[in-house]
């Protein structure tokens, strides 16, 4: 009896001769085994980067924002670029787990756990930038609306920067809850096969006493579905609000209504690229090629070429509007500061165009979508391109504004600005390496749920359903 019918024509999502027990074995074994040498190398590099970041932040906190190369004209530089970049990356996880759940896309099961983890770590990294950009970071709690002894002087609820505080913290909380509630059954699986005392204690604690009761599963399903329904508009709202940081201002190049959809598409684009980078590493290091298949990679590449093209249309629309509006400030920003190759920052605009719009077009070819090396290379190119996009938006709009006397000198970051960025890479990868070692990187229960409809060795059973008459089929399979 199959709970769901899936055509034999569809590629299997799980390869190999798998039973339920084999799925558990394959995914849980890396948790129980000693980490590989490759893991240690990666982990220590990440920790070293993190330490460098901590020192860079220490300098910034001690000596002030002057440690960075910001000036009166370019008040937002690398830090806000990095913030938007990390938040954008943090969008793919919830997109995969929530939107693809609502669309009933079976392939999400192989990648959702790691993508959600990536979301959480990316949002953690993103949060560092606006917090430390405040300068007096010990005053960071001033952004929270609480009855205080300063009046009470409240925060400005009409400001997009405050909307950001709410959006990012809500997004982080909801993603964490979604991720952790999905992890409970898998932690229980690790707990119930644990041999050592420490593992029994820790995973026993982490699994919250999960038993697998049918009633609990029923509630769990309902919870996942509603959380997915809530996260879907949430994920769209978060980057919309991030784009409002720019769009509600009067700076040429920022003051555009196209920003929300354009930012959301860009976020999905860069997020999927980061998922590709990580999943290709995970499937290689932990030998999970049966679960994260070429089919998964191809599906994600399709999303990349779609969103990359949406972003491309947005760039061209912006450029067109710069000319069509006949506003000389807009025209100057778009035609000179950005699109003119030999203007001071023209290189960054064309770098962005090359990485985000032109190069992903190779994914129109099936061979390229299914090539692991091309995908890995492209996933990095896309993220470089998306970093350039934020840099272009922020810096090219700021460095020459309405008043030529305040035009800034060429802005380039100091070592501590770069160090802070490198440090968030350290934080991100330290978390990700720990996650990949101690957490089930693939949702075990969800793979088991789709195994009998889409596993390679079960696919043949679908034939019986294909030759069956429709009413016979309905009678047999409807509960």
């Amino acid at each position, binding site marked *: *009896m199959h*709970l*769901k019918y899936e055509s034999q024509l569809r590629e299997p999502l799980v390869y190999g001769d798998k039973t*339920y*027990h084999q799925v558990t074995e394959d995914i849980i074994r890396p948790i129980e085994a000693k980490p590989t040498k490759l893991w240690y190398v990666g982990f220590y590099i990440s920790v070293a980067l993190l330490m460098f970041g901590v020192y860079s932040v220490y300098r910034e906190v001690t000596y002030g924002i002057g440690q960075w190369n910001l000036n009166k004209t370019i008040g937002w530089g690398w830090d806000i670029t990095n913030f938007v970049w990390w938040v954008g990356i943090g969008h793919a996880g919830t997109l995969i787990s929530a939107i693809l759940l609502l669309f009933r896309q079976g392939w999400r099961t192989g990648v959702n756990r790691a993508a959600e983890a990536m979301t959480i770590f990316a949002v953690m990294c993103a949060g560092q930038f606006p917090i430390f950009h405040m300068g007096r970071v010990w005053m960071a709690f001033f952004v929270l*609306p609480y009855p205080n002894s300063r*009046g009470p002087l*409240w925060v400005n*609820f*009409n400001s997009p920067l405050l*909307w950001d505080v*709410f*959006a990012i913290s*809500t997004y982080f*909380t*909801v993603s964490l*809850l*979604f991720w952790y*509630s999905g992890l*409970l*059954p898998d932690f229980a*699986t690790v*707990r*119930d*096969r*644990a041999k050592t005392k*420490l593992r*029994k*204690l820790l*995973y*026993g*604690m982490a699994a*919250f*006493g*999960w*038993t*697998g*009761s*049918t*009633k*609990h*599963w*029923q*509630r*769990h*399903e*309902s*919870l996942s579905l*509603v959380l997915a329904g*809530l*996260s879907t*508009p949430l994920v769209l*709202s978060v980057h919309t609000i991030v784009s*409002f940081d720019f769009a509600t201002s009067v700076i040429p190049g920022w003051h555009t209504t196209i920003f929300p959809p354009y930012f959301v598409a860009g976020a999905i684009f860069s997020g999927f690229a980061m998922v590709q980078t990580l999943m290709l590493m995970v499937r290689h290091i932990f030998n999970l090629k049966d679960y994260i298949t070429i089919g998964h990679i191809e599906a994600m590449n399709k999303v990349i070429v779609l969103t990359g093209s949406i972003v491309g249309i947005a760039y061209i629309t912006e450029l067109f509007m710069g000319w069509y509006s006949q506003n000389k400030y807009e025209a100057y920003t778009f035609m000179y500061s950005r699109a003119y190759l030999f203007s001071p920052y023209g290189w960054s605009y064309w770098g962005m165009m090359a990485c985000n719009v032109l190069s992903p077009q190779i994914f129109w070819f099936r061979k390229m979508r299914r090539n692991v090396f091309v995908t890995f290379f492209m996933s990095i190119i896309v993220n470089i391109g998306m970093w350039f996009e934020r840099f272009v938006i922020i810096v090219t709009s700021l460095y020459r504004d309405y008043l030529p006397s305040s035009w800034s000198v060429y802005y380039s970051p100091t070592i501590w600005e770069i160090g802070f960025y490198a440090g968030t890479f350290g934080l991100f990868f330290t978390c990700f390496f720990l996650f990949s070692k101690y957490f089930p990187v693939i949702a075990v*229960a*969800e793979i*088991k*749920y789709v195994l*009998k409809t889409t596993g390679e060795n079960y696919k043949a059973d679908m034939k019986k359903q294909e030759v069956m008459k429709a009413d016979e089929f309905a009678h047999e399979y409807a*509960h």
Partner: protein
Amino acid sequence: MAKKKFIVGCFDTEDTLFPAVKKVRMAGYKLHDIYTPFPVHGLDHAMGLRETSLHTAGFIYGITGTTTALSCISWIFTKDWPLNIGGKPHFALPAWIPIMFELTVLFAAVGMVLTFCYLCQLAPFVKKHHFHARATDDLFVMVIEATEKTNEADTLAFLQANGAVETNVQIAEPGWWFGRYDKEQQLINESVVVAH
């Protein structure tokens, strides 16, 4: 809570589990629960469980969030400390929509997860009796509660005849208690078996 006696039958595939559930219910056994390694769709209906109303709770939490945001912001900006922001209206509803939306989602999500944990009695250091260690791996563990009328041997034979690959009788505490999974623990006050 008192300990009870349970008859446990383990199935290795949902193909045998579903007909067995039907037969167990038809035969009038008191089905305690079925523990599965993944959500088996339709099993809740087969067992006759009612739909969960968790999503209704989520809706209520959500509108609580919306009203919290709207009432707090409007009180703050029109009554407590009206700020003049570029001469714009104090009651600037469109500008509050983002925060109202975010709080709706936040309240709904946090509330639902807490309710879920409360209803399923899930928390760190909560310990429960697990009828089979492989219930979270590859076995579908059907647990029948033994009452005065239950004939143990008959029930075991009945389960085996219906495809159970492993059967046994267990005396266990059906509730939860605080404990650690690295230690063999039961409830502090060991209680007697009530049903036979």
